[in-house]
């Protein structure tokens, strides 16, 4: 027998869910509130009611042009994601539809690179960037971000591709499709939902990447994550400005995430849920 859900339990669950959500969201909420305070208010202790001053936002914009790092963020996030897809689609195709005995090991090995602390390869990568002139360039960072997220992209696509019945690809082969036709006309369109969620998740990961972007950029290629960082050290205790910079940096990705919730949830479950 199904459990009867009374109105009272429903209300209870709703309140509990909102409470948990509020706790999780609170740091972001408080950042937004602080960004709307004056500097004076910001340092004067805990308060949830700001004076709705937009002073900090205009200060941030005038001190350090927002649009330049914003453009960099867009280029790095979208560029590295598209590049990753170009590399990962054929790779995932091969692993999903033409596996060998070692495919599982290769997948694990790829994922294991994500377990390594980034700091461990900081020096070699720093030196490579320095010697090859890639330091503080968009192209260098795009390639690096692509490589960092590639294992996740391949894994996600692999799980999505595995859901596509092999018979459909065989049918395409019987119908005279070349390998290229097969991938372009059959596999990719069928995997669009999977590719879309992979793309979204990867854009967000690349957008939020802070370690490498801070280490390997100064001004030219610095994205929004580095932009926030630049406010934290020299400006030290200017909480309102720092908050305003943070809000400006996370707003685009927050809005994107809001509109693509459904796809993202699918992406985060790694294709386990149909």
């Amino acid at each position, binding site marked *: 027998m199904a459990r009867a859900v009374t109105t009272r339990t429903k209300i209870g669950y709703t309140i509990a869910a909102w409470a948990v959500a509020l706790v999780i969201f609170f740091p972001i909420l408080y950042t937004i509130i602080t960004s709307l305070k004056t500097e004076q208010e910001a340092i004067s202790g805990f308060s949830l009611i700001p004076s709705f001053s937009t002073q900090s936002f205009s200060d941030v914009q005038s001190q350090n042009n927002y649009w330049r790092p914003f453009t960099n963020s867009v280029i790095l996030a979208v560029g590295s994601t598209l590049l990753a897809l170009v590399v990962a689609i054929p790779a995932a195709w091969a692993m999903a539809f033409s596996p060998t005995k070692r495919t599982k090991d290769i997948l694990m090995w790829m994922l294991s690179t994500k377990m390594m602390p980034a700091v461990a390869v900081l020096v070699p990568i720093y030196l490579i960037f320095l010697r090859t002139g890639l330091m503080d360039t968009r192209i260098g960072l795009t390639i690096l971000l692509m490589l960092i997220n590639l294992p996740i992209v391949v894994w996600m696509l692999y799980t999505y591709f595995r859901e596509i*019945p092999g*018979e*459909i690809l*065989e*049918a*395409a*082969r*019987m*119908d*005279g*499709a*070349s390998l290229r*036709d097969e991938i372009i*006309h*059959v596999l990719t*369109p*069928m995997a*669009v939902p999977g590719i879309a969620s992979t793309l979204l998740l990867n854009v967000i990961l690349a957008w939020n990447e802070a370690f490498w972007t801070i280490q390997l950029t100064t001004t030219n290629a610095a994205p929004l994550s580095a932009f926030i960082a630049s406010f934290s050290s020299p400006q030290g205790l200017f909480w309102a400005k720092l908050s305003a910079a943070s809000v400006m940096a996370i707003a685009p990705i927050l809005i994107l995430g809001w509109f693509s919730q459904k796809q993202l949830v699918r992406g985060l479950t790694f294709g386990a849920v149909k």
Partner: protein
Amino acid sequence: MGGITLKQVRKSFGDIDVIPGVDLEIKDGEFVVFVGPSGCGKSTLLRVIAGLEDVTSGQITIDGQDMTDAAPAKRGLAMVFQSYALYPHMTVRKNIAFPLKMARMDPAEQDRRVNHAANILNLTDYLDRRPGQLSGGQRQRVAIGRAIVREPSAFLFDEPLSNLDAALRVNMRVEISELHKKLATTMIYVTHDQVEAMTMADKIVVLRAGKVEQVGGPLELYHKPANRFVAGFIGSPNMNFLEGEVAARMGAHAIGVRPEHFSMSTSQGLLSGVVGVAEHLGSDTFLHVDLDNGPHIIARAAGEMPVNHGDRIWLTPQEGRVYRFDAKGLAL
């Protein structure tokens, strides 16, 4: 033009010989059915012919040309899959036209052929729908349509009806048979259902463990099975086998009698037993009988037969309807 010849075709996966070596000659325009229990290698053999699996050794000729190592698309064959394998993101029209598009055919000719195929298969009203919006039978017809438009030299069917419900399966069976009459193209059809094999085939190939047990017309297999396996596989319900004294009296290791070849009586006969289950279908009566000191057998009486559970019954195999087998299972 669609004669297919297999010469010593062997297929192994790793150490396992799925098909230890098959010789087969399929004439142009023939409807050939590969039948056998699951895991007998019938689908693998079909996939080898299609080119979806490489042969381990041996030779495949299609229309007299060696196609052993040719890519699937180059063999001029079309295949209908068990799961239909339609492209879910394309409309019915695009699904059917896909092989033509891949062949870079002139769009006007593509349209003409798609419309023609849709007409034959009663799909004209559904051309703008997607596979997801169609019933199982319609999807199956789309899969067949996709095969027809290429005008292949032979059609390959891999258990195409097993996902359909019983009533639809009978209809589609007839439709495919009619299609074969209309197109007069070679068809190779894989099934585990011997009824499909019997009703559709010009020639049946019975396979067991990758080996061809017997090749012949449906009635030839029914009347003259080469061995005990074929005898037991062809015919429904299965043939009854009796060993021991009864068989020895007829000079055989075992004898086989089909359920429909018993004369039944409630008073006398050669074999006596007790009725376990009596299935009264109106047109037929199936009796599951436990013979005294013997095996459980099934007998079929035409029409109605007034016996029930627990009744004693006598069965006598009809004259000339007894199959005799030696100790190795070969027909005597």
